[in-house]
């Protein structure tokens, strides 16, 4: 079983972080994983994306061109990658930044206003984690508590304030009924 994911948005949204959390959790679960970021002009602003592959087999090409799961967090990413999602896959959209509906009928589509939810709950900048919460609920890829524990494992003590924010964001996303 292999799951290919693409996280796409603009620089500063925590796109690469989201992908890394998925890869980490999969690694702790004993899976083979790869995480490949877009690099170059992207990291100086503009589009950012990362390919994540989780597999029981050895990971071949780390570049995801046809994702099982696409997380789109801005309009250019939505436009660029919407058509690439595999039939039967998932498309998760930050609907506060993308005011467009997908025309696909062969994928499960989920609209979550993650950026707005983050602002309303005073956790600006955590839209990426909110989306992860929704992704967990939709796909059942990881157990919620295990994923949360894995995520918090990477936070150093000097940044303890981030723990509550991450918990809040993940729960918000998980409990949102899209």
């Amino acid at each position, binding site marked *: 079983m292999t799951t290919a994911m693409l996280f796409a948005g603009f620089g500063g949204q925590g796109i690469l972080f989201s992908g890394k959390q998925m890869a*980490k959790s999969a*690694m702790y679960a004993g899976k083979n994983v790869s*995480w490949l*970021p877009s690099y170059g002009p992207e990291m100086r602003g503009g589009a950012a994306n990362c390919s994540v592959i989780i597999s029981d087999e050895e*990971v*071949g*090409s*780390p*570049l995801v*061109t046809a994702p099982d799961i696409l997380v789109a967090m801005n309009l250019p990413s939505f436009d660029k990658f919407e058509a690439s999602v595999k039939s039967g896959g998932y498309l998760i959209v930050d609907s506060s930044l993308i005011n467009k509906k997908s025309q696909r009928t062969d994928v499960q589509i989920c609209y979550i206003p993650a950026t707005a939810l983050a602002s309303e709950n005073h956790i600006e900048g955590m839209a990426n984690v909110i989306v992860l919460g929704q992704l967990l609920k939709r796909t059942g890829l990881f157990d919620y508590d295990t994923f949360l524990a894995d995520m918090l494992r990477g936070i150093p003590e000097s940044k303890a304030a981030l723990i509550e924010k991450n918990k809040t964001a993940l729960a918000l996303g998980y409990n949102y009924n899209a």
Partner: protein
Amino acid sequence: MSEKVLMKGNEAIAEAAIKCGCRHFFGYPITPQTELSEYLAKKMPKVGGLCLQAESEVAAINMTMGAAASGVRVITSSSSPGISLKSEGISYIAGCDLPCVIINIQRGGPGLGGIQPSQADYYQATRGVGHGDLRLLVFAPSSVQEMAQLTIEAFDLADIYRMPAMILADGALGQMMEPVDFGAIPQRELPAKDWAACGHDNKRKKNIVNSLYIDPQELENIVDQRYERYAKIEETEARCEEYLTDDADIVLVSFGITARVCKTAIGAARAEGIKVGMIRPITLWPFPKKAIHAAACSAKAMLSVEMSKGQMIDDVRLAANGQCPVEFYGRTGGMIPTPDAVLEKIRAMQAQL
């Protein structure tokens, strides 16, 4: 107990260098290898080491030569255009019989080129990385785990054979994260560096590290001696991974990140009933000639897959020595071949068998 950590390839090389006792880094930043120097800038001071950002690649390679001459383990890293700048120094290092590790996280070329992954420095690494009769040990990792393992291997073999070793990776391997298990590092018996110019306190004869020999007969003798070592290396150190070659009609030859694309394509081709396998060179010099020749004798056709316009294919053809036709598929300029495109090429070759 060792635990797997999620790391970038660039970071895995840096951590491996520290783990095997390297305490000296000289470099100059360049995308896509910068995380390597960034990691060492943070870590080296904590282990009593030195991470120095030189004023240029030329300075960095000459600092590397100086450190190597004093007998310490030393590493330098760059990406394609930076390696070109370092090539003069690398020739001097080879001419002085000094061990060091040079990292090339390749990007598209020629010239300033681009910053996306490439394998177009194959010729440079295996043929012409500097003037004169010289060789580098060249390792081609294809995973983040191998970035770490082969770095350690490169240090050891460089010390054993007193010559520079290169890790020839690419931007994708440098930038991507995968789990790495550093585990127990195999301990080798390494020769004493009794040639090092590291101060003698008048207790021994002074050591001289030099690559200048005005007398042509003397220089020929020294180069001949070096080539005896190179011959031994070609005999004993060539490494490759053989993947599903036993019954293969078509054998792919591919290294680094491209070999992984090929594995995905091979899986798909096998599912269609095409008997295809792969030889993945792990050392590019010495090149795994014997394994490739044997495959050429049993297969009906071979295919070299590279991120270049076709460079390794020359070595594949030399090794195959006419036993079977060798075809080529590649992308260049920073483009990574897709498994689908490689599969398409395999299908086309199968149709011709």
